[in-house]
């Protein structure tokens, strides 16, 4: 008889343990299940306990079994067992509210960007100029109007960091040609950033990190000048500002909800003034050699230039924490 009594108790316990765990492991169900889950997921004004950081979930967890659907009786019992983790829901008030039947594929994104500022210090490395490297630090500032759209500015400082390569020397010497080269001082840009894709990776099935891909379009100004190689005895150039525009493709890997490493390849496009490859001979109207006349120093036509940079840095998102509008 006692065996039977214990068996009854264990059977009930087993049934209760298995039922919810099984439902968590279910694959996505059809529309009917999703609707029920959506109703539960649309539960408003569920607040995390004070001082607790928000815990996000990248998946459609609620759709997987309706784990967000609570009943008042069960909640009361749970609250008695574990008051600290009690979720306070006014079921009567909640039941009267309109239900948003939209079901999101991804809920409570772990690193939410909406209404956050991004501070992005980075270092840029030249990728396509074999003659002069235009490396330098930069800073980007963005405000995310939406999770996938940001407006912002960025700027680079190149002054003092331009360096001519051995390749430039070797080619000039071997072929006896003077390749027109330039140096950069700074640039600034206004940008729109789109984040169409994000995901998460598990490293060795253990540590999970989140990442996203983004595309940036922007325009601004760049200050550059030619380096005199054809007639350095007579020619010295001042920096001048040109309009620039371009695009970037980048990736961020989040270490925390507010700190990420970023790598971006950006093309700054502009029309560059190059040194005139020929030296004017003769005298001008006042008897001065034409070679010393600054109007003869630049090539007659501007050169369409792509300055492709790899930009490697960090992204810090402010504020550091936030509250989700909806429960999982």
């Amino acid at each position, binding site marked *: 008889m006692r065996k039977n009594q214990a068996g009854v108790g264990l059977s009930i316990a087993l049934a209760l343990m298995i039922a919810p765990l099984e439902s968590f492991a279910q694959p996505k169900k059809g529309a009917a299940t999703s609707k029920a889950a959506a109703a539960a997921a649309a539960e408003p004004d569920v607040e995390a306990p004070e001082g607790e950081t928000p*815990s996000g979930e990248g998946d459609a967890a609620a759709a997987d079994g309706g784990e967000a659907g609570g009943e008042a009786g069960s909640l009361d019992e749970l609250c008695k067992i574990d008051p600290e983790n009690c979720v306070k829901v006014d079921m009567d008030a909640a039941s009267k509210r309109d239900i948003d039947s939209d079901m999101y594929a991804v809920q409570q994104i772990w690193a939410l960007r909406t209404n956050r500022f991004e501070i992005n210090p980075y270092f840029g490395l030249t990728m396509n100029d074999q003659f002069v490297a235009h490396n330098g630090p930069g800073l980007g500032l963005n405000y995310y109007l939406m999770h996938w759209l940001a407006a912002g500015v960025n700027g680079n400082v190149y002054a003092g960091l331009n360096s001519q390569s051995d390749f430039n020397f070797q080619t000039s010497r071997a072929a006896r040609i003077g390749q027109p080269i330039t140096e950069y001082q700074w640039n600034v840009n206004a940008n729109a950033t789109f984040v169409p894709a994000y995901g998460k990776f598990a490293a060795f*099935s253990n540590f999970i990190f989140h990442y996203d891909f983004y595309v940036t379009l922007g325009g601004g100004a760049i200050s550059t000048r030619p380096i005199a190689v054809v007639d350095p005895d007579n020619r010295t150039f001042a920096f001048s500002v040109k309009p620039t525009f371009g695009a970037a493709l980048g990736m961020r890997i989040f270490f925390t909800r507010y700190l990420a490493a970023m790598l971006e390849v950006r093309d700054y496009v502009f029309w560059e003034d190059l040194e005139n490859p020929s030296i004017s001979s003769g005298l001008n109207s006042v008897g001065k050699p034409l070679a010393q006349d600054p109007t003869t120093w630049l090539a007659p036509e501007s050169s369409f230039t792509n300055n492709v940079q790899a930009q490697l840095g960090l992204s810090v998102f402010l504020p550091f924490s936030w509250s989700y509008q909806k429960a999982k």
Partner: protein
Amino acid sequence: MRKATMKTKIHTLAALAGLAAGVAAVSSTTEASAQEIQISGPLAGASAVRRIRLHREGRFDVAPTATFTLLDEFRRNILFGARLNYHFTDWFGAGLWAAGGISYNTGLGDELQSKAVDGRNCSENPNTLACKRTAVNLCRGPNCLGDKQLGSIVWMIAPQATFVPFRGKFSVFGKAFMDADISLFAGPAIVGLRERVDCVKGTCAPSSTNPDPFSTASRIAPTATFGLGFNFYPTNNVSFGAEFRATPLAWNTSGFDVAGPNGSGADDALDSNDRSFHFNPMVSVFASVQLPTDIKVSD
């Protein structure tokens, strides 16, 4: 009657004990999240990821590839080939990549041909200063740089091991989802090069006995290769992606005499001293088929 009441109480207590155990089990699972493995509770020590589709384990991966060299100085190379891997586990595989292809002048190569070769026309004006000073370094004639002087990568064979430390998924606008992983690969490589033929001092420039000493020859260079791949799996059997590969190697891309023995300057001879070290970065794009078609799923 008392016995019956007692029995009922015992049944009730047993049922309540079961209920309490069940509630405890349920309440302890509600805190689990994908990012944080609980320190205590039923998920303690559990794998961070479950039910992963094992796109690689026990499968062959066959992929035609198109490879484009990057940061080229004078010649750009496009290599067409294939990759065959077998994955012993979902995180480790071994295989072979082989490719061969074509090359063409970069903008700088074309500019050199136009200004320094065609513009000077040294065949007709051999005694000008520029032609005398570049006699060892620049060929003469139309398209001669690409045909007879500049170096190019003709083919590559690379047995390689592939490691897949990062495995995850990918969402586009929160609507479309794909499995994805990042792979690292490394291995020895054999590179087939085409370079300007070596020559000793006095024989590298055009002369009455040898008016055209410029020509290229094949060289096979053993080296190593390594890189990083991004792989996306729209279905259980097909994937696509891109690989970034470096193949460090010293070779003479220009056909110029730039150095002599022991780090000295140009010595009017073409030899191994004129080779310079390059990482030879290249990017491959591919579409891949995983075989067999059945896919395993982890616990």
